[in-house]
């Protein structure tokens, strides 16, 4: 298990070097996206001015405070509480994010499914697990909100954060098709009969 320090953008080779259970810490740019952002980008044909090639995105919709724009808050927003949402709802957007926008890393909680695993394998990317619900902690890793796009979708805008020491995040899906979630799921389904037996229920 290796530890990686990344300042995005990263290369395909860097993404492909990640192995399950490796850890990653990010510094610099990180983009925040979620349901509405992705629906508008890929179902409604909207475009972003941000260049996401080689970058990491996090499934989030932050709590922010509007402030006067300044060098510390260039976008006119100050972070209040920035955490992570359940990734599963964004499953079908992993491939277009990678194919059309060149995203390399997806950060989220709860994991993604087979079509995302295939996209990571074919296009060279990885899913990094963060601890869901630990937003007060993760907020301390965000230095500033640098820019915002598609802000009519607020709080589901496309956010550009500047982060420092963002991690450690765990590589939970890698470019070899591996997925810790799939492993645990297979294992837990294998334990179903024993759990039911403990309840006096015969499984079928």
């Amino acid at each position, binding site marked *: 298990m290796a530890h990686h320090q990344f300042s995005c953008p990263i290369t395909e080779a860097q993404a492909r070097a990640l192995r399950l259970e490796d850890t990653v810490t990010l510094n610099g740019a990180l983009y925040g996206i979620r349901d509405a952002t992705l629906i508008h980008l890929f179902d409604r044909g909207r475009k972003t001015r941000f260049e996401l090639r080689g970058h990491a995105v996090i499934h989030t919709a932050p709590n*922010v405070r*509007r402030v006067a724009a300044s060098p510390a808050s260039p976008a006119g927003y100050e972070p209040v509480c920035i*955490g992570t949402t359940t990734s599963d709802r964004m499953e079908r957007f992993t491939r277009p994010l990678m194919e059309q926008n060149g995203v390399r890393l997806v950060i989220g909680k709860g994991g993604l499914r087979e079509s995302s695993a295939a996209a990571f394998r074919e296009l060279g990317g990885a899913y990094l697990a963060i601890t869901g*619900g630990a937003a*007060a*902690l993760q907020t301390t890793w965000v230095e500033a909100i640098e820019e915002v796009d598609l802000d009519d979708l607020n709080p589901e805008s496309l956010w550009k954060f500047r982060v420092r020491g963002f991690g450690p995040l765990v590589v939970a899906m890698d470019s070899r098709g591996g997925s810790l*979630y799939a492993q645990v799921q297979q294992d837990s389904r294998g334990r179903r009969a024993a759990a039911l037996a403990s309840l006096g229920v015969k*499984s079928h």
Partner: protein
Amino acid sequence: MKVDLQQVEEVARELYIRALKLLPPDVKQGLDRLAAGETDPGARRTLGTMVRNIQLAEDTANLLCQDTGIPIYNVRIGRGVEVDGWGLKEAIRRGCARSTREHPFRSSVVHPTTRANGQDSTGRGVPVIHIDFSDRPEALEIEMVPKGSGSENNSWLKMAIPAEGVDAIKTFVVDCVLEAGGKTCPPTIVGVGVGGTSDLCLHLAKSAATRALGTRCEDPEGAKLEAALTRAVNLLGVGPQGLGGDSTAFAVHVETAATHITMNPVAVNMQCHSARRARATFGSTGVEYGY
């Protein structure tokens, strides 16, 4: 006792913020208990991060989780309490909106089809307000639950039939926990409703999921199910965040209601590890805050 509606508005505002920032002691103890018994090193680290986050939220007066949830207010009106019911609901709604704008924090509430966000955590039928009565004299209680969507999106109802018996209930709960995997932000409180009508069954599941850890179902049959199901779901190995481990659920909570001779309904609603709730009690000596 006469209830001052301006005070209700202030309390409704304060309760939302308190619930988002301070985790109840029973949930903190629940995390400590799971961490002490966890055998998987990765799972222990994840539980440790959750504990650290709770402390940091308190130290920095920040929100525990970014998900401000759907606001739910549960009101219990005791005996001898005089209150304008309609005015009470309006006051709660105003307090809820003010907390969102004045703190400020994220409004997570949108219209279901246009997806328009009014940016104050309110909308048609939201905040959810449940009003019930208690036999406590001269006391009005308001409980606030910000219900996060990761867990709420994993809600199920099965209208099983009598011939399927209690086995159908047990199997359904186990299968829901498997289906939820890491999506509900485990370790969770698994709320199970047994009996009633379809809507009552789901409501029971929600009440069970948001009940304090360490409390038991008042129906002894429900309490028996709680103990057995808690052991069973923790044999599955889903673990914190769905990444494996012993700590899948703090507990399975069950609430029961009588049902029809032809029916055997079971519902599951989950609460994530950030099992937030706050409570205020209005009495003759003022307002007291708790969990």
